[in-house]
């Protein structure tokens, strides 16, 4: 074998090994959700037989239960289940609550932190560097510390058990990292264009609206996605703030499926899948922004 051929063979083997590694990792990443999807499509009887990845008799029954909201669950007359404790008919309501709450808190955090990031990077006043420092500290404070004081505040304001309490509560976790990420992002936007526009006589607000916002858009989108993910995924705040079953967001609601005597794995996996879908869609649409955000927010920009 010539040296070139040997080198080529060695590279071939190396690349082959790398692909094997990559595929193994991909399987590890994807398997839990693929398994959830597969389980959610199986009829109840199939769950206790030897498991297969592809369902023998695929059915959309579980999804129908969740989406149509009728309590067909154990409707055959068996008595092991009290349909008032954790009824699948609330699923769509929970879904709506989750959407409202995460969009609401994201809007609040993004508006506040965009304005602040512009202010901190383009104006000169004392203590302005305290903002990013403070945000960094803020997003390392554990939620478990924030949740009870905020709960007491919400009690005093009479907001407990209302979606407002969650919307406002999530601001305490989403605001610091939106601020940090946007600060890092705004710092990197070249200032010359704005300067030129200002010299040409454009007003501050016009420059902000027409020049700064469009160039900051990728950063704003990244921050918004992160904020949506965090508030959509929260369990702790919702668990502490909310009492009535029709005000729960998805996370707390779905965990109720566990409380019954019988755990209906098919139904549970179907709700797990439905709960992941909005985030997965966001993820696919905006993957590039997400990676950019990771870079700016996690490693110093």
């Amino acid at each position, binding site marked *: 074998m010539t040296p070139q051929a040997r080198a080529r063979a060695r590279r071939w083997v190396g690349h082959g090994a*790398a*692909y094997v590694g990559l595929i193994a990792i*991909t399987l590890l*990443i994807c398997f*839990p*959700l693929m*398994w*959830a999807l597969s*389980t959610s499509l199986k009829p109840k009887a199939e769950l206790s037989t030897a*498991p297969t990845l592809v369902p023998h008799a695929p059915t959309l029954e579980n999804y129908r239960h969740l989406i149509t909201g009728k309590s067909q669950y154990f409707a055959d007359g068996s008595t092991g289940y009290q349909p008032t404790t954790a009824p699948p008919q609330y699923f769509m309501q929970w879904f709506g609550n989750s959407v409202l709450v995460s969009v609401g808190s994201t809007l*609040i955090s993004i*508006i506040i932190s965009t*304005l*602040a990031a*512009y*202010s*901190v*990077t383009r*104006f*000169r*006043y004392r203590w302005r*560097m305290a*903002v990013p420092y403070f945000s960094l*500290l*803020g997003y*390392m*404070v*554990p*939620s*478990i*510390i*924030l949740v*009870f*004081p*905020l709960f007491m*505040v919400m*009690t*005093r304001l009479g907001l407990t058990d209302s979606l407002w309490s969650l919307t406002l509560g999530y*601001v*305490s976790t989403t*605001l610091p990292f939106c601020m940090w990420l946007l600060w890092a992002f705004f*710092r990197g936007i070249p200032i010359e264009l704005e*300067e030129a526009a*200002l010299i040409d006589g454009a007003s501050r607000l016009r420059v902000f609206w027409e020049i700064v916002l469009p160039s900051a858009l990728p950063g704003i989108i990244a921050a918004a996605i992160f904020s949506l993910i965090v508030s959509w995924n929260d*369990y*702790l705040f919702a668990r502490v703030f909310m009492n009535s079953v029709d005000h729960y967001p*998805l*996370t707390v609601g*779905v*965990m109720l499926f566990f409380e019954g005597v019988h755990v209906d794995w098919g139904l*549970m*996996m179907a*709700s797990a899948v439905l709960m*992941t879908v909005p*985030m997965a869609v*966001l993820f696919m649409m905006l993957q590039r922004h*997400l990676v950019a955000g*990771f870079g700016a927010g*996690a*490693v110093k920009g």
Partner: protein
Amino acid sequence: MQKHEHWRAADNRIGLAFIAPFVVAALVFMVYPVLESVRMAFYYIDPLNPDGQRFAGLANFATLLGDPLFWSSLRNAAYWTFVSTILQAVLGVGIALLLHLPLRGISIFRGLLLFPYIVPTVVIALCWQWMLAPELGIVNHALRAAGIIDENIYWLSSPTMAMHSTIMLNVWKYTPFVTICVLARLQTVPTELYDAARVDGAGVVRRFIDVTLPQLAEVLAVVVVFRTIWTFNKFEEIYLLTRGGPGTSTFNLAIYSFEQSIANLRMGVGAATGVVMMMMLFAGSLLYMRIFRFQEDT
């Protein structure tokens, strides 16, 4: 990073107007809760009767220090954090090196990588519960089929296994974070360094130790500090999988604080736990600030 010229000090009023909402929100949603939780740590507070608070002095902290469960929660938290962070760092670097290879189709793999990060913890916890279920779960089934085990492993209901199952969940979810950070840094390592090393006759391993690792040192230090702090504070990743059980074998400080506040109705003790956590967090942040200083003009 280019340095900005701050011009036109005259229109600072707009600047202050733009920062005002942040200041208000930060005071209400971040500063106040933290200060309030410090205050609460010195009071007897029943969440069902928020107006009947009594000053407790250091009693809540005394309760903590005298509670064996607090100490075992602290030990669990330390073990959980240490093992998770190490695994995340090692796997994260390994995967980043793989993803850095100039292979065809590599961008597809890179794209998939962030996926675990967006999956809600509730969903992963449910999936894990189902996969690790002793009788029906796929994991035990696969192990039985492969002849590795004869008797089912109780992944979530024996103390040691439960601890390691939650570590697995944590590693699954947060390794991508390390990978992304390391990958971003790898892409900025000058290729000349590798060429020079190759000319000197360095093999793959030598090149990794002499060139790659020193270049990664800074970002790794930052990431490890971050991951340590965040992992230490995690609540849902354990609570949703094991509720701190079996028994109290997977309690960490966050779960301890939660249980004191909600189940035992002793919010003061819960808040005191929070204060202890914040002190540890503060030490961690100081470390972080030392490792990398802001290069921003002041």
